[in-house]
């Protein structure tokens, strides 16, 4: 099984340690991982702005880059959803579209559904709050959303529960959006920041020392507010916890 590591553009540029943690984690599991150097971005910024014409060449490039791999694994729910759910309108004509769009997986779901991981060699003796990123939650169904009434499950908490010493805190609003939303963060700056502050306050009232999540984009927005306001909350990507690269 050959895995293509898909690192979102802003993670590549701004959070290389998260990409390294993802790579480390997959290698710890003795998986054959390759990072194709031709990769750029999934095209989501244009897609979410409604510029599907501009997504098209970027999606074509993505499919060409990743089609040789059995699985494409990405430490982001949002970017994974872009490839899986939103390429059909712009890139279904491409050779390799079916393969790439069905084989692109978010890191946690890959570990749970494909690798069927049973144990994780990491420990984190802290109270941790999980920020549920919306696209992972409601587009990829990594967990049951609070609106739905079917049987509860969560692939992400399932993984976190394997980390030694971790204590997951109970949030008041367990899956409310953080307000990032891509260009929304700029276009609706006032609401975006208010939503972020409310998420942070929820984590603080729940006694979290660390906030984690599957999407660095939500966490970038939240951490930006936390840093500015000096809130006592450390923000880490889930890959860093699972790979044991933070202490």
């Amino acid at each position, binding site marked *: 099984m050959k895995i293509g590591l898909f690192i979102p553009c802003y993670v590549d540029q701004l*959070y290389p340690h998260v990409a*390294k943690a993802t790579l480390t984690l997959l290698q710890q599991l003795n998986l054959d991982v390759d990072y194709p150097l031709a990769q750029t971005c999934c095209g989501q910024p244009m897609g979410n702005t409604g510029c599907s014409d*501009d997504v098209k060449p970027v999606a074509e490039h993505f499919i060409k880059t990743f089609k040789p791999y059995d699985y494409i694994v990405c430490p982001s729910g949002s970017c994974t959803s872009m490839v899986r759910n939103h390429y059909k309108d712009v890139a279904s004509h491409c050779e390799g579209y079916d393969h790439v769009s069905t084989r692109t997986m978010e890191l946690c779901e890959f570990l749970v559904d494909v690798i069927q991981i049973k144990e994780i060699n990491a420990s984190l003796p802290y109270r941790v709050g999980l920020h549920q990123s*919306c696209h992972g939650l409601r587009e990829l169904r990594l967990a049951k959303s609070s609106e*739905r009434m079917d049987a509860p499950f969560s692939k992400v908490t399932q993984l976190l529960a394997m980390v030694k010493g971790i204590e997951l805190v109970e949030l008041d609003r367990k899956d409310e959006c953080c307000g990032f939303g891509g260009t929304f963060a700029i276009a609706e700056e006032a609401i975006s920041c208010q939503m972020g502050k409310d998420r942070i306050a929820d984590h603080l009232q729940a006694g979290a020392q660390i906030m984690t999540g599957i999407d660095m984009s939500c966490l970038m927005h939240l951490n930006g507010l936390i840093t500015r306001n000096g809130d006592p909350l450390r923000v880490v990507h889930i890959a860093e916890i699972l790979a044991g690269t933070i202490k």
Partner: protein
Amino acid sequence: MTQMHTHHPKKAAAFVSDQARTTWHNKALWFVRQKRDKAAASLPEWEQLRDTAAQIKAHSLSNLDEYLEEFERNAQAKGITIHWAATGDEHNQIVYDILKTHQVREVVKSKSMLTEECHLNPFLEKRGITVIDTDLGERIVQLRNEPPSHIVLPAIHVKKEEIGELFHEHMGTKKGASDPKYLTESARLDLRKKFLDAEAGITGVNFAVAETGSVVVCTNEGNADLGTVLPPIHIACMGLEKIIPKQENLGVFLRLLARSATGQPITTYSSHFNGPQKGSEMHVVIVDNGRSELLSRKKFWRSLSCIRCGACMNTCPIYRRSGGHSYGYVIPGPIGSVLAPNKDLAAHKSLPFASTLCGSCTDVCPVKIDLHHQLLAWREEVVKAGKLNPGKRLAMKLTSWVLQSPQRYKLAGKCARLAMKLPRVFLYNPLNIWGRQRDLPPAPPESFQEWYTKNRDKNS
């Protein structure tokens, strides 16, 4: 009363600048969402009900012409007069003509978003007819001379102290009173006189049943019943999408509607109107006003399934923090942002962007409208129509050009990281909207790609 044309971010920013009020508004609506969760969780078959409702609506909308005619035949057989209106103005004219024929000067109206959509009140008032909204929330916003801010809770944006002042001014209640029980009782007494004086009653319609020709109106206050039983004329106004095929379908929708709206098992009153009372008249006005056009839009027709429960508003994190008036359309929140561009894309182009696409609205919707996907699809329509801000359009074209080439991407990334190393005073300039309330992440010395290229051999 006129609204329309809006730039959501501006009005939203104004709303959210009052932190205390925003928190209060957010909490009030979240409370309703939590009540909905509890009520929905009490039914093990909840998701099955949603599926069934979505299918019935899809079927009804796909066979709308037949069901509308079946409804007309059966309603006429019951002595109901049916009117057809292509536009909001036609609807208003029909209602006015009925009232004029009977020399009606005062009419009571229960909640109807359709009449809000058509601006019936100002139309009638201009022609000398007094309209009294009898739903308590509607009455409050009518007295305040503003549109409702929510389709189920029209005055959710108003605090009880403000209602106290309003009622003191209009009904002579005690100054400074804010006890909800006292204020409600006062409004009730005041409205009772209006009910008795009214010469006609107007209602909306929640469901129109094709096989029986009857209409169902759901209220919590019984005001639709009082307003139709006392006066000799009942005019029910409905959008043509309100049709359901069979009486038995009501069992699905009535169970979903109140649970989704307010967390009640069922609305206090679910009144079935089966024709005029003895010596009275009953009219049903069936209104298109853009609905046929919406039905013809491949990506958007399913939004006509909406049963106006308001659950998407209660759950929407943006609605809760920006208030209904920030949308500048008769129906706010996610469903309003999907419906408004169908009426006027240019005027409402900011609404599809007033969302993080979090998808909570889609998951809460009792008839499973894929709201956040429709919002995204409307963004594409905004772009196609050339209505996206030119700066943004250019930025997207440029970004696309950069991302098509690994070399250009690498260079752009490097430049961006360099720029982020500027001293704070330059970095956090007025053009940096991100940085108004948020810090940027510290720029790392190298990208993952640069690191991987150097260390590739060690990693393979």
